[in-house]
């Protein structure tokens, strides 16, 4: 029972309730860092860390928090973890910190974090919330990486900085520029939505038959 529950949390976070293509929230800071895969990966890790620990903290103190100030408390908890990430990056990966620039700070206003804290951690025990945070973060990172995979492959002919396409490849400048990110994400959302649509139809058809 418990094991199945945890599996469900992960499946929900990564696919069924993936924050980006189900609810289309939290893409503010998603797209700007998707020009290179490495940036996306670091950004994804930062988000996983922040969201998991914020949910844990919110969940631990959920019984002592007065309801009408809970929003501001959640924001403060999130900011604390974002500051930790920011200081950590500055100290150990100064180049990465420069490349991500203000986008690390912008994790605070990412709707996913508030959404998960308010929607899940507020009503669930700490361990479950922590895992839910990791799952949502993974779902988010997954999208980041798929967008940046396309952009880096066609824009620079590389993956994680390694050359995969030979010298014959002409870089597509459009992929380096912002508009491409909108197109790629749009297509991903389209694909994901049509897929669920089909699944739901099959399910409905199945129940009608039985």
């Amino acid at each position, binding site marked *: 029972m418990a094991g199945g529950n945890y599996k469900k949390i992960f499946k929900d976070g990564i696919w069924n309730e993936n924050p980006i*293509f189900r609810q*289309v*929230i*939290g*893409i*503010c*800071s*998603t*797209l*700007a860092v998707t020009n290179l895969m490495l940036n996306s990966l670091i950004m994804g890790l930062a988000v996983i860390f922040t969201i998991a620990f914020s949910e844990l903290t919110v969940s631990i103190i959920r019984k002592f928090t007065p309801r009408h100030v809970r*929003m*501001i408390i959640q*924001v*403060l908890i999130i*900011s*604390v973890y*974002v*500051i930790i990430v*920011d*200081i950590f990056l500055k100290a150990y990966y100064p180049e990465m910190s420069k490349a991500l*620039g*203000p986008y690390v*700070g*912008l994790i*605070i*206003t*990412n*709707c996913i974090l*508030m959404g998960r804290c308010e929607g899940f951690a507020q009503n669930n025990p700490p361990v479950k919330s922590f895992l839910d945070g990791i799952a949502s973060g993974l779902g988010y990172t997954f999208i980041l990486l798929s967008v940046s995979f396309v952009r880096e492959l066609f824009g620079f002919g590389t993956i994680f900085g390694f050359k995969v396409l030979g010298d014959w490849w002409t870089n597509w400048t459009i992929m380096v*520029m*912002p*508009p*491409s*990110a*909108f*197109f790629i*994400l*749009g*297509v991903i*959302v*389209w*694909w*994901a*939505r*049509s*897929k669920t*649509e089909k699944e739901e139809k099959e399910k409905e058809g199945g129940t009608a038959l039985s």
Partner: protein
Amino acid sequence: MIDINPMVIFLAAIFTNNMIFSYFLGMCSFITVSNEIPTALGLGQAVTFVTTATALINYLLYKYVLVPLNLEYLRFIVFIITIAAFVQLLEMIVERYFPSLYYSLGIFLPLITVNCIVFAVSLFMVIRNYTFLQSVGYAAGSGLGWTLAIVAMAGAKQRIKNNNLPKGLEGPGITLIITGLMAIAFVGFSGIVQIQ
């Protein structure tokens, strides 16, 4: 950075460095609220006002409180508290003294706290070392640029409302693709004025 005219920064923030089309910020409400032009315009005005006002407050706080005390790393928390408190205060004042305005704009105010661009403007302003006037120009420009984008999007969405789309593309999918097309148009502005 010191010698750029604030007016240039203002224009650049609207056209060449548009918050949506080149930094992807403020997308959440951009996608959900862009269905009707009047609503979009209302939200745009509210965002512009809040962005400018909070950028002013945050600039003063950062320059005269955080920097002298060597507490720059606390800026995330301080900025977000300023924004949340300002929006709350504004909501109360508007509700009390301008009821008609409250009914047209009031519903948007809580949304603004989590709008990325309000916070982003404060962060960019600090990172790029803008002076006071430059910050004002930048904040107002960013807000107006965002308004321009969301109103244009609302217009486009109204035109395609009755057209048949593939099922999965409806809603956010098509919004993202239209945004991409608009972003290409805005790329045409690049090079007119240059800020970082």
